[in-house]
């Protein structure tokens, strides 16, 4: 028994590049969605609708890419564009839902959590309904003719058999978005006047208003961007990782993004790190389940999957570091 475990661990080590490859692919989804969480919450609006918006983005992107792809199946240039059209649809869908969230929560001062829950329920039923109505199927949509998964990014000067080559093998554009976006968001939030204003709105809207910052506009901007990012994360699942929409998408991906946002203490770079940290757990779980199911007798799968959430609770509770949300979070702003 002991020898088997040693073998398992040594083979796991061999698998490290593959594990990191999976980590990058899974982590990208969480990271992009988590950025959506960070920007909304920094402006003082809770967005627990990330899950629902991801689902909507996943569905709209597949629908657009599917019809565009088949319509232009004889035109190679337009055909190549089809996943990008899907991405565009996800962005539009996400922006629209973000706008709705902002309209209800900012303009009408509705309860942000309640509306987030409503969007989640709506996307759950709504996308299932549309899947049936548009594709006539209940479990999953038919595959799109061309997805991002079919067009991985190839960097010519990296040897595909090297360590880095194996890690970056088959990575789509989303992985690179996930690596660059947090840096841009970090620079925006902490190095520009606009970012400072946005954070001021999330910490102390009254003071921000007094200084002439338009609280409503700032929040609208943040929540719409948040929707766009969640939409892109959804497209990442359906067009980047797979090539169709399945009924379970995103299966808690939006909530783990929220967890990553908190774990990263509302800092884009922290959230990025947390996303990849969580994704590594998931990749490890998959790798063990596929290659060494016997090991799961010692560390049950459920424990693996529950770990990111448990860690987030510990961080929140201050047992591991301390996460403090923006001051004015969840409160609608009444102009005095």
């Amino acid at each position, binding site marked *: 028994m002991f020898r088997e475990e040693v073998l398992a661990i040594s083979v796991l080590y061999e698998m490290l590049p593959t594990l990191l490859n999976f980590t990058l692919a899974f982590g990208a989804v969480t990271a992009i969605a988590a950025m959506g969480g960070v920007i909304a919450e920094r402006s003082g609006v*809770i967005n*627990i609708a990330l899950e629902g918006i991801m689902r909507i983005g996943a569905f709209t992107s597949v629908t657009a890419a599917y019809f565009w792809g088949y319509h232009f199946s004889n035109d190679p240039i337009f055909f190549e564009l089809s996943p990008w059209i899907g991405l565009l649809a996800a962005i539009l869908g996400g922006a629209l839902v973000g706008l709705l969230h902002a309209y*209800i*929560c900012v303009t*009408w*001062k*509705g*309860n942000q*959590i*309640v*509306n987030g*829950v*409503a*969007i*989640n*329920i*709506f*996307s*759950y*039923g*709504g996308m*299932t*309904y*549309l899947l*049936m*109505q*548009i594709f006539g199927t*209940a479990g999953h949509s038919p595959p799109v003719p061309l997805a991002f998964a079919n067009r991985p990014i190839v960097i010519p000067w990296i040897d595909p058999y090297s360590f880095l080559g194996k890690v970056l093998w088959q990575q789509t554009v989303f992985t690179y978005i996930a690596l660059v976006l947090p840096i841009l968001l970090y620079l925006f939030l902490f190095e520009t006047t606009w970012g400072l204003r946005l954070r001021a709105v999330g910490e102390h809207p009254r003071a921000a208003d007094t200084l002439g910052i338009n609280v409503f506009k700032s929040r609208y901007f943040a929540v719409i961007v948040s929707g766009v990012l969640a939409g892109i994360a959804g497209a990442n699942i359906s067009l980047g990782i797979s090539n169709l929409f399945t009924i379970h998408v995103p299966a*808690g991906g939006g*909530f*783990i993004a*929220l*967890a990553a946002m*908190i774990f990263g203490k509302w800092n884009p770079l922290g959230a990025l790190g947390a996303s990849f940290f969580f994704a590594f757990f998931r990749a490890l779980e998959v790798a063990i389940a596929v290659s060494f199911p016997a090991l799961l007798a010692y560390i*049950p*799968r*459920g*424990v693996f*999957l*529950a770990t990111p*959430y*448990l860690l*987030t*609770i510990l961080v*929140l*509770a*201050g047992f591991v570091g301390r996460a403090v*949300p923006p001051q004015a979070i969840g409160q609608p702003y009444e102009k005095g």
Partner: protein
Amino acid sequence: MIIPRLEEKKIDFLVPFVAVLTALVFGFILIILTGGDAFKGYQNLFAGMGLWPDRAQLFRLARSLENASVLALTGLSVALAFRCGLFNIGVEGQFLVGAISAAYFGILLDLPSFITIPLILVISFIHGGLWASIATYLKLKRGVHEVISTIMLNWVALNLIENYLVVGPLRVPADPGVVVPTGTHTINATAQLWSIIPAIGLKVDIIIALLATIAIYLLLFRTSLGYEIRAVGYNQEASRYSGINVDRTMFIAMFISGGLAAISGAVLVMSVLHSYPAVFRPGYGFDGIAMALVGNTTPFGVLSAGLFFGGVRQGAAMMQLVGIHKSFADILQALAVIFVAAQGIIRYLLIKYAKPITATAVAEDV
């Protein structure tokens, strides 16, 4: 102009109705937009609820009531916490804790039915309450907002139960080579809920929901604890200064809330499923939030919302006959919640357009 207190109350009462009606209208438009037959669809919806006299009416009504009891119990759970100023998003997890607890003790206990069933309900209640208390502890002692902690706890519960207990220690040993998860063993016959009318499969779950509704009503409006719960929910600081032990009140409210959610899960297992399935349909907790909001967080309001949406859930199954997927029920429910969330709009319109009519009516009276 000062709006009299009664008007305020009347509007509170009207908001959910307007929200549900608007949702029905929007749903109607949605069916037309997606190329369905909305008239036939709605006819089937109401027939499917069991409101239409036909051969299967009673059977459908029984299914509607079955759905309603689960919805009402999760709704009461959310509503009670809400009354205390706590947003319990953890109903989903507490529900699963109750379900697995009922499945486990339903197999373990082999006593007469009149002992087993109440005993399992009490055990699940305590388990759900304890699970919810983690969030209360985190809130009161570590300052963690309950919305975040309960969301995280939901996923901890889901993963530990469905990806560990149900596929591990509590798994039914499948035939060798079969990897498809099967859920737990079937619970003993003595742990299955009693039938009221066996012919249509009407069980006592709706009675349990009704009793819970009455109990929560009495608790909230006829006991000093209930008064304290509402006071804390209305103004925490003022309650503290008037001598209410806010921490204790929150702890109790959250414990009962978690317990109710767990009972809901237990009832579903004991009445319909008879085991913990391999994969639960997600969303019971969110359904509960919907019921609490549409029911205006009053016990009987929640029960009514549960009855309506329980019926919608059953009715939607019959909409499939005219090519409308049953997930339409979720859409209606979500739309209703969106309109409750956006009640600022509804209130604005009600005050703007309903006000002059009442004012003239009052003037004519005088």
